């Protein structure tokens, strides 16, 4: 019952609000085209007919939610997942490179944080570069990564994943530097009185203390990994993946297809973030965090 009161009702209310607004804008944005059509045919169009027509255009400025839903149902459930027109196929292409890039990025971020926390020199020398790396617009650097890696014969999943890695290592590195430094002086002094080695201080104190920071930054990292994978699909000529669907949709003015791909990408991100949240809850419970 608590779940209904705390989650379903508030989230549902916002969702209904968004859908209502969406329908209003569907009518407003698509109406000029219908009026033009009517004017060109020298006929008048009733308001009821106008509203009905705005929600059934083939290439609307803004497709109605039910049009997008129908497109998603068709491309996710009706078409075989092996078909190039299936969103499941394209979703999987994007998801696999998202997960690979996210995994590598998380690993890289953790390793960088460990190095930075244990070495003053690396702290001074690496940290500015890590921050600088994120000021470069990803849209500019993504094609470069793809082109350069293609030139050295690295093709397929890895170049796309590298872009996700490039984006996702950053929140993990920054979060983990903070997390690994989070133990209070007293906790560190305690380890010193035991004459604990650096490795013992790491595994028994710094690592467990950093867990909340790790999961928070992983949530951010997984969401931007997905963005990175989609961006990485654009300069490859867009053969497969959510990015390819977006690009193909915009080439041919298939707005319904674009919106369907957008919604599916958003749902994928939501599922990925929730999965990290679930793992965090499980780990928290094992670590005795107060419910």
């Amino acid at each position, binding site marked *: 019952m608590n779940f209904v009161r705390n989650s379903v009702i508030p989230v549902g209310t916002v969702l209904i609000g968004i859908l209502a607004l969406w329908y209003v804008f569907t009518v407003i944005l698509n109406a000029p085209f219908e009026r033009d059509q009517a004017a060109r045919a020298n006929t008048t169009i009733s308001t009821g007919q106008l509203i009905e027509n705005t929600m059934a255009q083939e290439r609307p400025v803004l497709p109605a939610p039910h049009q997008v839903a129908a497109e998603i149902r068709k491309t996710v459930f009706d078409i075989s997942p092996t078909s190039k027109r299936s969103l499941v196929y394209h979703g999987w292409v994007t998801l696999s490179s998202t997960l690979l890039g996210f995994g590598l990025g998380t690993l890289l971020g953790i390793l960088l944080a460990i190095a930075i926390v244990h070495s003053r020199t690396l702290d001074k020398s690496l940290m500015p570069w890590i921050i600088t790396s994120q000021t470069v617009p990803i849209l500019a650097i993504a094609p470069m990564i793809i082109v350069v890696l293609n030139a050295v014969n690295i093709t397929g999943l890895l170049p796309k994943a590298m872009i996700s890695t490039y984006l996702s290592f950053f929140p993990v590195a920054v979060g983990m530097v903070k997390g690994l430094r989070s133990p209070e002086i*007293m906790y560190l*002094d305690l380890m010193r009185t*035991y*004459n604990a080695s650096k490795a013992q201080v790491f595994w*028994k104190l710094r690592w*467990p203390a950093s867990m909340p920071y790790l999961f928070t930054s992983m949530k951010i990292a997984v969401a931007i990994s997905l963005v990175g994978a989609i961006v990485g699909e654009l300069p490859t000529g867009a053969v497969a993946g959510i990015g390819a669907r977006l690009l193909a949709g915009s080439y041919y003015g298939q707005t319904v297809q674009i919106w369907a791909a957008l919604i599916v990408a958003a749902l994928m991100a939501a599922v990925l973030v929730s999965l990290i949240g679930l793992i965090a809850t499980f780990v928290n419970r094992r*670590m*005795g965090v107060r419910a």
Partner: protein
Amino acid sequence: MPQAAKNVIDVKDLSLVFETNDGPVNALSNINLSVDGGEFVSFIGPSGCGKTTLLRVIADLEQPTSGAISVNGMTPSEARQKRAYGYVFQAAALYPWRTIAGNISLPLEVMGIPKAERKDRIARNLELVNLSGFEKKFPWQLSGGMQQRASIARALSFDPHLLLMDEPFGALDEIVRDHLNEELLKLWAKTQKTVVFVTHSIPEAVFLSTKIVVMSPRPGRIHEVIDCNLGSERTLDIRESPEFLEIAHRVREGLRHGHSYDQAHL
């Protein structure tokens, strides 16, 4: 007991100067002190008198600027590496992600003690501080007094001969503090440890100690060392006795003469 006569801590002409942005601060100045095995020594004084700093020097958590100090006949650093002492902090400092048993196991894991023996020692030390049955609880599930008892069990778990305690009951209310003072006294009698205890409570120092080191601030130094032995079978009632009040009075006078009550410092 042969160990009782042995000199456990020996401090000679020790000084410590902290370099701060506002210039050097004389945290400790010309400290001379010796602690024998089996003694219960309290450092008492107002904040800024260097009592905690002196304890941290003994524990090799701070480095003296000049002078000599030995712990168990070694340098503090060697003593620390030999795990010669258990340290109890102002806060319990239990790791929140470990259960009570897990926290007591921590030093044993660091020291590479096998699992079967760890289990044995956890049970023994929890019993010593009357916390049997709380093994699987997490620290937040225990009261402040129980947490501090667990931290004492942790310090005792690897059986050091020396126990260094930095205002361990300072954050607790008086009723709990009285109770833990009694328990600590029993524990000390049972285990025959040497205890160095930092406090700013006169009754606590008089009740617990065999020797009270009265310290004064700016620069941190030892003003007076007062012998204090009220017999081994003490209870809290002794605090009403003339002997107790007499020593408490001497400590208070010592603090006053050490300028601890100067208006300028309050």
